């Protein structure tokens, strides 16, 4: 039987005896009821819902790009070069006579793939390092965390530029270059939480029962530090997209003619006097994506992780 819920969304417990009072519930997404409670909190946050809606639209746009884009994004001369927005070309055309709207739609693929894949990659590497560092401690901890301190000193875009210099261009390398800059924050957040969780009685119980370290880390520690990691991930996606667009603006992103928003803006700057729409319109797409992802990230932070609420 489901317990009735209190005003705070936790099971109602009038005398506070059967449940630990106000214990933080970081990873409270285990059950369907908990998920439902989280969704009700999330749905009340208007900014977050708007962010989610825009994000899902972007995902749909990226997946169905070939179906919804009015022209081939790579085809030159589908319109008069540098034509202003019109009914035939809603966002106008660029200097090669390519349809800008179609290029924006296809450009969302690069932005999303890099944004999500680089954060996931950084998450896997950073969380693993944080788990190992926090759980084992000692020399391992010192070595890993000093390396993280070093990485953390690099401004993200400068580290990404350095990585692109080493690896050469291409979408895969952009993903890796952006990811490297985000490893240190994930490792730090994870390590900090592991240090707290490690002292819990249930971890000691598992250890005494002879459960292997690896099993303890992945079955008992990881689920309990997951919420702040998810929040951190959501907050970083917009940063990853900004970094990707910065790299492609500098000409260090995916090679042309792949449509990438940053490169479209760079190409448009040359024609800012004659045809300002070429640089401005892709920037609007980029900004909407970033605002939406920031709102979504903030919403997840406020609803998922009680300790990080402002």
């Amino acid at each position: 039987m489901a317990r009735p819920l209190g005003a705070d969304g936790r099971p109602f417990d009038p005398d506070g005896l059967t449940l630990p009072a106000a214990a933080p519930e970081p990873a409270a997404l285990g059950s369907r009821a908990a998920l439902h409670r989280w969704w009700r909190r999330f749905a009340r946050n208007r900014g977050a819902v708007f962010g989610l809606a825009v994000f899902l639209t972007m995902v749909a746009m990226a997946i169905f790009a070939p179906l919804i884009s009015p022209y081939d994004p790579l085809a030159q001369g589908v319109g008069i070069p540098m034509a202003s927005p019109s009914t035939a070309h809603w966002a106008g055309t660029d200097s090669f006579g390519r349809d800008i709207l179609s290029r924006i739609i296809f450009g969302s693929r690069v932005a999303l793939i890099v944004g999500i894949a680089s954060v996931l990659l950084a998450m896997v590497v950073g969380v693993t390092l944080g788990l190992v560092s926090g759980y084992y401690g000692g020399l391992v901890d010192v070595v890993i965390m000093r390396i993280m301190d070093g990485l953390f000193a690099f401004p993200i875009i400068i580290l990404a530029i350095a990585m692109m210099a080493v690896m050469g261009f291409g979408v895969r390398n952009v993903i890796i270059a952006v990811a490297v800059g985000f490893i240190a924050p994930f490792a730090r957040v994870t390590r900090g939480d592991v240090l707290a969780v490690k002292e819990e009685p249930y971890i000691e119980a598992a250890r005494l029962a002879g459960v292997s370290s690896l099993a303890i880390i992945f079955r008992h520690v990881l689920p309990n530090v997951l919420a702040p990691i998810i929040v951190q991930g959501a907050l970083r996606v917009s940063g990853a997209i900004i970094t990707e667009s910065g790299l492609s603006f500098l000409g260090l992103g995916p090679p042309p003619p792949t449509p990438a928003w940053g490169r479209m803006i760079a190409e448009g700057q040359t024609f800012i006097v004659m045809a300002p729409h070429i640089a401005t319109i892709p920037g609007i797409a980029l900004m909407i994506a970033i605002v939406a992802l920031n709102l979504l990230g903030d919403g997840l932070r406020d609803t998922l992780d009680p300790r990080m609420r402002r």
Partner: protein
Amino acid sequence: MARFVLSRIGQTLAVLFTVSVIIFALMRMIPGDPVLMMLGDDFTQGAYEQLKSKLGLDRSVVVQYLYWIGRVLSGDLGDSYLNHERVSRLVLDAFVPTLVLVIASLIVGVLIAVPSGIIAAMRKDSAWDWGSMGFAIFVYSMPSFWKGIILIWVFSVYLGWFPTMGYVAPWSDFREGLWRLVLPAITLGTFFSGLVARIIRSSLLEVLDQDYVKAARARGVRQAALVYKHAMANALIPVVTVIGLQFGTLLGGAVLTETVFAIPGMGRLSVAAILNRDYAVVQGAILLGVVSVVVVNLLVDIAYAFLNPRIRVA
């Protein structure tokens, strides 16, 4: 205090060591044989072996690192592969305009942030409060390079108030130099101002809630005097920290902003070097960039300890 400063300097040296190892490792990961590249058409087996041992590349990795870091510490970053200029010279020349841009942006950012943060805190939940916070999120979400292009479009192309691009050192021609810095500094400074305004607002609200401020208010001190005489000094302390933490982000933003405005700084130097595969220059630029971030963080931490005696003990 001395102990705090010494321990922070120790930490900084440790970070700098790690940074140098990371950069050294990165540069060794570059595909291709640097010796072959440097020889080019002059390749003979003998010349190859000779240059390899001259560069120390026939030794172990640790020896190579020690050899490299020794030269770096004596100020020798090698020569540019393209035009054989000293890398240290090229990098320092490019660092100056970037630093000028960062400092100008800091000034613009603080000039916008302090008044809007104060008003937002004094009129909490008013239209001004919501408006300035909305503006903060808005400018924070605009990529700096795009914001720069929009500013050029509006203020240079359309209104014709400012030059579209280019850089003149403020000490060679103060008026012209300053004039050309306005748009780039606004581009980078507004990004920074949003964040700082939010921090001033929340820290001022916190200070205004403290007993000594309440006591002053009970004595009949007016709101404005309360803010400026009693609360402001304490509320500004966190701003110092943010400036330190954001220096790296500002430097990264400067790399993009100066590309928009054709300022001959670190961004242009390193991007050109990457496209030309001039790795000694890439390495030198990144090294100087990161070292400056780490050193600024150290200085800010020490300044913070001076401003806030409670930190020194920790």
